């Protein structure tokens, strides 16, 4: 009897996950379809919504990305300095900060900040539209909700997240530089020279390539949880939490996978 119940339980769990997977894939493919094929089928992109979203997602996130990355750069320099001094290589603070920010911390921390700010906003917006019949209203007007609500957000974040990552990288480097030059008394020219010596173009574009994937994760998880929302204001709150948490986890997993790919393929 217990055995039966256990199998039943496992069965429903598998079914639930399968349903999530199917729903998510169909939302994803529909989004890509409207973003790529829409313009060829006389369904142009909503350019004014894209530009509004770019302002909201990009321009208005600059300050928080700056602060998070600037202080991360400061902390990195301060934490690594004592160890490097012991080994007599204080100057390598410059390269350590630069490489860890450009390769890893810049793209990931920026994506996490944006997942918190934008992922939550996407879910809350679509979720409250869902519970207030607005999504259905779009549908009855013959306006595809995915095309109208998700595609502009995806395109906007696809453009803005890499830009924010670059800003985040620069802010982190600035933080490290300030500690290196004004606290650790490294010569400014020498700091910059050492920083650039070890930094390759690959570090920058592997970092940026990650941010495209993160943009995809943040928008699609945000939209999926939004469309799945049920049950009024409480439902919107729950969906928003799930959206942010899921995005966080997936960003870290995707980061590990991509780093693994670059690592094993010799980058």
């Amino acid at each position, binding site marked *: 009897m217990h055995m039966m119940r256990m199998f039943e339980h496992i069965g429903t769990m598998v079914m639930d996950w399968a349903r999530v997977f199917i729903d998510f894939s169909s939302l994803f493919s529909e989004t890509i379809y409207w973003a790529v094929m829409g313009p060829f089928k006389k369904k142009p992109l909503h350019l004014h919504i894209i530009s509004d979203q770019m302002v909201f997602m990009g321009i208005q996130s600059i300050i928080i990305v700056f602060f998070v990355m600037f202080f991360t750069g400061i902390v990195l320099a301060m934490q690594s300095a004592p160890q490097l001094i012991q080994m007599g290589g204080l100057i390598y603070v410059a390269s350590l900060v630069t490489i860890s920010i450009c390769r890893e911390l810049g793209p990931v921390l920026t994506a996490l900040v944006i997942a918190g700010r934008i992922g939550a906003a996407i879910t809350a*917006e679509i979720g409250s*539209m869902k519970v*207030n*019949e*607005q999504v*259905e*209203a*779009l*549908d*009855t*007007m*013959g*306006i*595809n909700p995915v095309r*109208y609500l998700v595609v502009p957000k995806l395109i906007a974040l696809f453009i803005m997240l890499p830009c924010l990552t670059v800003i985040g990288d620069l802010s982190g480097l600035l933080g490290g530089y300030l500690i290196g030059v004004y606290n650790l008394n490294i010569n400014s020219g020498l700091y910059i020279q050492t920083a650039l010596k070890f930094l390759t173009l690959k570090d920058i574009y592997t970092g940026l390539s990650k941010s495209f994937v993160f943009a995809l994760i943040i928008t699609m998880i945000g939209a999926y949880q939004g469309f799945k929302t049920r049950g009024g204001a409480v439902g919107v709150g729950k969906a928003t939490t799930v959206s942010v948490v899921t995005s966080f986890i997936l960003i870290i997993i995707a980061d590990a996978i991509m780093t693994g790919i670059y690592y094993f393929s010799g980058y």
Partner: protein
Amino acid sequence: MPEQDIAISVKNLEKSFESLKVLEDINLDICRGEIFVIMGGSGSGKSTLLRTMAGSIPPDSGQIFFGNKALHDLGEEEKDVIKRRFGMSFQSAALLDSLTVEENVSLPLQEHTSLTPNVISIIAKMKLNLVGLQGFENYMPSMLSGGMRKRAGLARAIAMDPEIVFYDEPTAGLDPVMCAVIDRLILDLTRKLNLTSIVVTHNMESVFRIADRIAMLYRGKLLEVGTKQEIKNSKNEIVQQFIKGKIEGPIQLT
């Protein structure tokens, strides 16, 4: 009724959610130019019926015919083209709250026509004028009262000059005077614009003020369809209990 006079017809419609049967063997013909009211208690399936007719919920079996087209057999694109000939007014008005009133009314025109922004703006103002909302073009939906939101929703529903307008509880949550205003509006729009109106409501005053014909839905089944007089004189005890709003009677409260 001759074929060409039928605006929309429902054949053998069945719909369940999970194991709950919501609609059972529904057959209806709705004539062009009439105001057809579907009444019934909460959970009787009337909103589901309305949404299935409007094409937003697919039925389990049965079909909706619009002209000679079976609505739910069409592909998404063809269905979207048909949907442009429908308008829908929602219980909560369902205006997009990121857009102004005028932008809301303009939205279907922007999406489906190649009219210039100036022309669209003129049409939107005209539609808002029809529902008595001139001067509120630049208001956000959150700044409007419930009745005004309903009217703005109505203006959006008629933006594309639809042939059929569906109303989901148009007077729910409004004061009696505003109810009368909305009822008058439904009557005026239907007659002036030569529309067919399908109204879901449980407001009895409204029902008898606007209906040309009435259908009574109870537990997913159609109990009776008839004119106001026929429904008033109905022998069916459930219908009588419902229209008189009595506690005692055959209606099982859940």
